């Protein structure tokens, strides 16, 4: 409705105005997700731990993948990737799923993908506990550089938000995207070194390794492992790659969402 004002300013004003709604929707999602389950929110901690047991068993005994501290290697990678996967697949159907609301009250549309990203973020914080638990169980002392992890969380958050904006808009017009996305996510996961060591990338066919090198998630996962496991401070170049890819995703996502949002109501 406001024209001629900086869109970022309008965006921030709306975020502020609807902050209670964001909070309420996030809490609602948490409540509904774990309603009637005995352990409730504990599942957000347990799930990655159980997954880790399965993956560790399969990949270190059957596929004989040789990585030092494999459980932690896997957990740190999957923490970042699962956050992205959960945020974007939530955002994908967020506007469609809230169509009863959108048809009756005016709410800025970006609230819904933003809320799903926040919800996935809260979930990730719980899963972070799983990482801490494994640190203790395996007597692994993380390096001090782990204090920089909020930075990488912000990068992934912005990147996921951008992709989420894009998907939430595009899925309104083409429902096929919803069915394609889980396949895409699986491919995306294998294009990110989560269960195999980074050293394996060089031995892959040139096509595959170049795809991996253009995959932003590769850099995010690497960034988090470097600061949490190996005590390596990411270079300026690493940071730039992360920032530029995140901002690019956000820019494209917001433009698509902004351009499409007035037509949503006719399609949902």
């Amino acid at each position, binding site marked *: *409705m406001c024209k001629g004002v900086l869109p970022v300013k309008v965006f921030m004003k709306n975020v502020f*105005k*609807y902050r*209670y*709604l964001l*909070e*309420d*929707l996030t809490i*609602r999602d948490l*409540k*509904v997700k774990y*309603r009637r389950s005995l352990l409730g929110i504990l599942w957000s901690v347990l799930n990655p731990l159980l997954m880790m047991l399965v993956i560790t068993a399969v990949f270190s005994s059957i596929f004989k993948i040789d990585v030092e501290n494999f459980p932690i290697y896997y957990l740190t990678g999957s923490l970042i990737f699962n956050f992205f996967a959960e945020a974007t697949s939530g955002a994908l159907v967020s506007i469609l799923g809230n169509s*009863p*609301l*959108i*048809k*009756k*009250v*005016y*709410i800025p549309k970006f609230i819904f993908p933003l809320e799903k990203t926040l919800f996935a973020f809260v979930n990730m914080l719980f899963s972070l506990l799983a990482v801490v638990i494994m640190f203790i169980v395996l007597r692994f002392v993380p390096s001090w550089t782990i204090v920089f992890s909020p930075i990488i969380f912000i990068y992934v958050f912005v990147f996921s938000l951008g992709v989420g904006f894009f998907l939430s808009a595009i899925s309104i*017009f*083409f*429902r*096929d995207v919803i069915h394609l996305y889980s396949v895409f996510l699986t491919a995306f996961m294998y294009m990110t070194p989560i269960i195999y060591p980074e050293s394996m990338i060089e031995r892959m066919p040139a096509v595959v390794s170049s795809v991996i090198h253009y995959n932003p998630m590769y850099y995010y996962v690497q960034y988090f492992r470097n600061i949490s496991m190996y005590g390596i401070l990411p270079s300026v170049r690493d940071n730039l790659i992360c920032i530029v890819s995140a901002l690019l995703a956000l820019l494209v996502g917001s433009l698509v969402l902004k351009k499409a949002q*007035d037509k949503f*109501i*006719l*399609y949902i």
Partner: protein
Amino acid sequence: MENAIEISNVDMHFNMSKYKIDSIKEFLIKLFKHELMYEDFIALKDVSLEIPKGDVFGIIGLNGSGKSTLLKIVSGILKPTKGSIKVEGVIAPLIELGAGFDMELTARENIFLNGSVLGFSRQTMKDRFDEIVEFSEMKEFLDVPMKNYSSGMIARIAFSVATITRPDILIVDEILAVGDFRFQEKCELRINQLMSGGTTVVIVSHSIDQIERLCKHCMWLEHGKIKMIGEKQKVCDSYKNS
């Protein structure tokens, strides 16, 4: 007097064939056959009106005459194809029952959720919570999931939340028809209170009695066009005689 709502030359078109396209395949086929932009359905045609602040404005007309579409445009849910609309102040829309309710949650949780959907702050909701519950008369069912509510019970909660703060503009679409007659009376009383406090009310109803009782001015829509607009008695009389 200042105007709360100004609608000028609003057209609303729906593209009927576009509706049915849900997949890329269909889209390409339609594009290829040049069927994309056809079957224009005109829901509103050249509607202009001004509603002054503090007015209670009724909209009548047969089913499909564009009443709800107009309300949705006023609330900002739909963007008009042509024309412009200016709205002064905060709108509390009561367009359909239970807008913004999550039926899995309890009434207590939903009251807060609905409050934030309407843009009220957490503190306002806490302060007014008891008042909302009291007005809705639903105290004993507060912690029951709303999927177990009847539609009348949902309407009570919805109306109570939407009118708890003094909105600048209240939009009521048919929902008063749901509650029992005692609650309807209570709602009308509340609307009258809001009016004297300066709230502008826009009502859509099929109950001519209700429109005659509550409104000052009235508009009669027919096939998306204004058939008649003006003082309520005149419009209601000719509507009834048509």
